[in-house]
């Protein structure tokens, strides 16, 4: 099972609703983010026109997660039932090695809880059959949540419906991120790293 997010950047309008919904749902302190929207551009494309897209970034739910490998206490782990990479806050000793090992810098240090935190794909919501807060709040319907291994899931269908050339992932340095980004070349050139 590979529960993850697929984000259609052709649809994303950069409204930051996902980032706000994430902070509200998970009570994330001021100045820290589990999900953040990065403005990519504006840049001048080959046709001499300006192009910009917005790149929401959160835990990429890597198949070969380096954060799990470096954790000295097993606090970073993969939930056997959902396949989601999570943090056991009781076990986290605050060494921050996982923050160093994450290629995408999506883990944050919580001053209030004195442990590392990150996107949990809103387990408190998905376990009750709801969508993660960022997916539910997306007014452009650009975010999809589900199991990539289930052909009937929203994420599998979104990827299957997209032009293979439009399916991207953040640069893979051996960690195999599962989060997919859909961005057509006609909208903007992908700048988030190689597939």
């Amino acid at each position, binding site marked *: 099972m590979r529960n993850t997010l697929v984000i259609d950047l052709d649809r994303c309008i950069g409204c930051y609703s996902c980032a706000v919904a994430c902070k509200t749902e998970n009570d994330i302190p001021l100045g820290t983010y589990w999900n953040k929207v990065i403005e990519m551009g504006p840049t001048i494309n080959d046709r001499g026109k300006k192009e910009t897209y917005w790149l929401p970034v959160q835990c990429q739910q890597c198949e070969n997660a380096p954060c799990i490998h470096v954790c000295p206490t097993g606090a970073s782990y993969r939930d056997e039932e959902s396949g989601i990479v999570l943090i056991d806050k009781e076990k986290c000793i605050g060494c921050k090695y996982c923050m160093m090992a994450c290629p*995408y810098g999506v883990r944050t240090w919580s001053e209030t809880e004195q442990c590392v935190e990150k996107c949990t794909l809103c387990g408190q919501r998905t376990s009750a059959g709801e969508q993660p807060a960022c997916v539910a709040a997306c007014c452009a319907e650009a975010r999809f949540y589900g199991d990539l291994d289930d052909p009937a899931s929203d994420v599998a269908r979104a990827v299957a419906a997209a032009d293979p050339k439009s399916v991207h992932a953040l640069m893979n340095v051996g960690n195999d991120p599962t989060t997919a980004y859909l961005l057509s070349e006609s909208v903007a050139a992908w700048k988030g790293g190689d597939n």
Partner: protein
Amino acid sequence: MAVQWSLVVFTLLTGAAGWCFAALAFDAVRGKNRDKAFFATIVALVLMVVGGVASVTHLAHPGNMLAALNNPTSGIFVEAMLVGLSSVCMIVFAVLVKRGAAPTAAKVFAVAGGVLGAALSYLAGSSYLMEAISSWNTVVLPLGYLATAVPAGITLYLALVGNDAEDPQTLLVVMVAGAVLGAVFGLVYALGSGSQADVTLLLYGGVVACGGLVPVVCGLLAFKRRGQMRTLMAVACACALVGALCFRVIMWETFVLAAAQVGAPYITDFMVL
């Protein structure tokens, strides 16, 4: 990610302590400078303990170290074990030297502690080998940690031994070689990391001039000016420590831009430490 000073101090002090005791072990095996062995051991032990404590302050709570010790495969566990075992060797050696008992056993503990302490200087650097950070993921990094610790530790030992040091030539040669290698590894690491971080002053002023050139010059002078051994080695030690510190800071300075190279240009926005 900002410079993690707890980890910088940890690797700096334990590296110097490890190589100080390794130099002492070399003399202990040869039967040289016996009258200074106890004092030098105590200094190395204090540095090792202070370095270890600095590492613990990096955690959310010092008591969390106990949790890390439950997992013997982690880098933190290995480092903690090396700090603990080398400290035990130092303590036993100091007791045996003070009581003048079991000279053979004392040599065994000296060699064991020296080897463990020297190994720690390499392994502390190897903990940072991560695929996610391209500039860190090179063997030059732990080699730099090792090489910059060599002059810091040996000059500290020779400064403690003082002007009447017996037969210090071999240690001086190793110290000079370590200083040269530390500067070379510093250059190779900083220039080869591909990072555009501005580390010019840290590299050329700190690692090369302070950490490499000064200890080499002091070492060469000490061959002929034995009467100034303590002064020369004290100056060399201070500069070697500054050089080793700069090398470690450069590693952290390259972190952000290295992250950008693997597709995370926004990494600084997430990092709140």
